[in-house]
């Protein structure tokens, strides 16, 4: 009987702990974990999340996992050890990250994912997913239009271990392959890198001087490609990127790269922090775990409205 009573009391305590709103006081910590800030896209995420967290009165712990799932796991341990109230995470792999997010959940820390999704639901509280596939389709449709639906082109693919590299490539081909007069003469990975894209582009041009277009899986590779093309006197080749960086915006404005696709990095990071705050302060979970953030096409028409991964109205 005694034991029963104690069990029931413990049960009630657990229910109370889980259900009752806890006030957010200044000392509450939110951990913000993303890939390396070398890529301005991830930096914008971290800056956006940090700004919103501070605005809401939280302390922040900003960490980078460099797309290394083991490092990510250690950083989650750090966040747990520091008693974070929530984790904002742009994860290091759709499958590899499930265990890490589960570990945080088991320790009572909710995770709010941004940009990339994981292949499991019910582990994170929310997944605010960049709709890379939709973005790739937008970029490819613009590319097809600029190419006049015909010609030889090159595809520069991102880092193979990154899910988004494959998703974007699939999205591109989903559209481009409907046009039989568009011929892909080379497809190579440049690992998201500008310098690698430059040297790969140089090599590709030697074997295939007759190309009219380059579609790149991200903006840094598009920057490398346009530089190599301009150096070879082929600045009129149509180059399309992905991300919506300020570098590519400036290139579009000066007539270099023709288009890119904006992922709302800053806005989605802020949205994740707002949802984390709502969860911490009011115990509220979003209506849907997985939330798609559509991308926006950027070309000469709207490039001047773009600033640090956000588009002014």
């Amino acid at each position, binding site marked *: 009987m005694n034991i*029963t*009573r104690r*069990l*029931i009391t413990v*049960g009630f305590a657990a229910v109370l702990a889980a259900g009752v709103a806890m006030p957010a006081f200044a000392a509450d910590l939110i951990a913000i974990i993303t890939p390396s800030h070398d890529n301005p896209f991830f930096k914008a995420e971290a800056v956006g999340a940090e700004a919103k967290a501070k605005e809401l009165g939280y302390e922040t712990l900003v960490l980078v996992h460099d797309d290394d799932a083991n490092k990510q796991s250690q950083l989650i341990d750090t966040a747990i050890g520091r008693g974070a109230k929530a984790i904002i995470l742009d994860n290091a792999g*759709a499958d590899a990250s499930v265990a890490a997010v589960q570990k945080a959940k088991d320790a009572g820390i909710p995770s709010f994912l941004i940009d990339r*999704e994981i*292949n499991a*639901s019910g582990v994170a509280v929310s997944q*605010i*997913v960049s*709709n*890379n*596939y*939709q973005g790739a*389709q937008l970029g490819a*449709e613009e590319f*097809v239009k600029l190419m006049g*639906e015909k010609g030889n082109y090159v595809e520069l693919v991102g880092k193979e271990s990154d899910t988004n590299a494959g*998703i974007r490539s*699939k*999205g591109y081909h*989903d*559209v481009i392959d*409907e*046009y039989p007069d568009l011929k892909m003469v080379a497809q190579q990975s440049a690992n998201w890198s500008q310098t690698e894209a430059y040297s790969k582009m140089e090599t590709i041009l030697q074997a295939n001087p007759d190309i009219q277009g380059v579609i790149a899986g991200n903006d840094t590779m598009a920057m490398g490609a346009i530089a190599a093309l301009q150096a070879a006197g082929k600045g009129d080749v149509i180059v399309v990127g992905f991300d919506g960086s300020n570098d590519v915006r400036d290139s579009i404005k000066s007539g270099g790269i023709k288009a890119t696709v904006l992922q*709302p990095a800053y*806005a989605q990071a802020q949205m994740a922090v707002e949802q984390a705050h709502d969860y911490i302060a009011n115990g509220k979970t*979003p*209506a*849907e*775990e*997985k*939330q*798609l*953030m*559509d991308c926006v096409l950027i070309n000469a028409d709207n490039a001047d409205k773009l600033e640090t991964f956000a588009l002014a109205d």
Partner: protein
Amino acid sequence: MRLKAAAVILLASALGLTGCKLVKTADKDREAEAGAFDPDKLVAEMWDGKVIPYLEQRAAPLRDVLAATAADPDAAGQKHGYKAKQGNAPWTFIAKVDGTIVAEETASRAAYVDVDVDGDAKADVRVAIGPAIRGTALRDSLDFVDFNAFKNQIEWAQFGKSFNTHVNATLLETLPRENLTGKRLTATGAYPLPAKGQLPQMVPAAVTVGD
């Protein structure tokens, strides 16, 4: 006695949870039985019984939808459209078109006709006639399909594309392709909220071209 009561409550809540999951598992089992993810089949199976009745029931004349949108896009969306509860997708509107073709672009594989519905000889809507169709307006107009029920954005996108493939194969391939301008067009379809100054880009779920 108390223990029993607690056990019953626990059992009840456990059952409740399991009940929720059973639905999903059943769906997954069905998917597994059918083999790999087959978006074309999913669309074909829901087309006549769910998609067409839903669109027919919700579609208002384009003029009314455009007027409502100009006045208040959100109110118009609630009444004439759909968007996912969360995320940043724009409203997708559902409308009926009955008008005259005033321009045609059939050299492109993403072919379309521009249609005037109010008799001023100016285009009010651009209707895709394939074979390449841009966007996922048909999928995005449906209130009974949801990204959360799909494994990831790739499957969700393939599902979206399958609506276009279906329309193309069952509807658009047999449409006339020449001298369309001046002919009457009727259609029921969906389009996302257009950017300022741009025509609505409609993907039809039903379409006829007459004289």
